[in-house]
């Protein structure tokens, strides 16, 4: 097996493993969480 094929397969395996793990753990780095700190949200339209 060529080195590039090996490395790409390894990378794909790593990504697939992380995705599968995240799926079974219900995890995402983009999940929401934490209450809003006072003034954290900006209200109102941005339309001028």
């Amino acid at each position, binding site marked *: 097996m*060529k080195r*590039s*094929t090996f490395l*790409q*397969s390894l*990378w*794909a*395996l790593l*990504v*697939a493993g*992380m*995705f*599968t793990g*995240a*799926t*079974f*753990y*219900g*995890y*995402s*780095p*983009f*999940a*929401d*969480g*934490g*209450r*809003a700190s006072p003034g*954290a*949200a900006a*209200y*109102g*339209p*941005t*339309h001028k």
Partner: protein
Amino acid sequence: MASAAAPAPSVRALNCPACGGALELRAAGYSVTVACRYCSSVLDVANPDVRLITRYEEAARQLEIPLGTRGTLDGVEWEVIGYLTRSEHGSYSWEEYLLFNPYHGYRWLVTNGRGWSFAEMLTRAPGGHARGAELDGHSYEIFFSSGQAQVDYVLGEFYWRVQFGEEVVTDDYVRPGWMLSREANETEVSWSLSRLLHPKEMERAFGIAAPAKPWPPLPHQPSPYVGPIQTGLKVALAAFGFLLLIALFFGGGATLLEKNLPVPLSGQSQPATLGPIAVTRPYRLVAIRAYAPGIDNAWIDLDYALVDRATDASYEAYGLAEHYSGRDSDGPWQEGSRARTVKLAAVPRGTYDLVVDFSGNRWPGSSYGYDAPSTYAYGQPLSITVSQGSVFPSNLLLAFILLFAPVLVLFVLHVRFEKARQAESDVGPTGLAAMFNSSDEDDE
């Protein structure tokens, strides 16, 4: 050119009539010209009486592959019998070694210092097409056009009457790994096909260390990224297909709770506790969707706390449903979203209550805002839906980017390679190099 069935030539000894140096004719009977290895004088050896064609008194060069060296390429042992250097009137010089095998004839080893090619004269003319030539079903693109190559230096023996300053018009056509060359003078046109040798081949055959990664690339150097890109695409597609299957079979969600709350747009915070909510798997993503279909020029702040009844562990998040609209000189406008979903990651199995602190607010800056009449009495309806699942679409998107990122990097490297390779071409970039050629480079 000698054929495979031709008899082996005898080695013939002779003396240079110019300097008296002892010479050895390795392809006697085939060679017609010898350049003396001692004084560089060119001799006619077609006849038994050696005749001086051109007298020189120049010390012979030390060659990278000395004349008489033998090496095996493509399973055939070749002997170096001649050497010449050529250039385009002094620029872009290259070297050519003439190889001989009594049963296979002549071949050439060609180098410009960045790589070696193994060339064979063709006994047939390739076909032509719009941008190049065609030979044995392979298409070759024009790379160098109408070059003027002259002989600058010769040493050893040759099968034609080679002369210093001898000129030919050259055209070179390439495909990855191969170069097709046309040479023409007033009397004849000849074609040769050369194969780019791997540095290891040259090292095995003649003990020459060639650059492993010449830069800029040679005209017929194959991009080292094409194979890895093809492999990377297959691997990434297979892996992403697998992830889609995972998402399909394990990503299903279920609604755990649906409640409606009246939210007055009074600006006052109010709590509500919704439950029970049973998370049935060890770890799940929990999505909380808030939808306020009636709000306009208003927003609802939503502070969530998903509290485990058994452990009091709390998972908190913040949501905002808002919608604004109006009219200005450009016409009506609207922005914001009346629905907002927040997602909590890795919520353990258990029974939960959802504590919602909500406050409805009217946007004071709008002169066009209004509330539905019911708002004043009961508040705007707010629907809260809690569901569980396992696959975040963002995870799938991230996995897609990560899987194809190496392919993208390789593709960028491939384009860079092609642009560098074609930068030396006489006919301008083609293919990907042309596609990604910037206008600045066009101007240069």
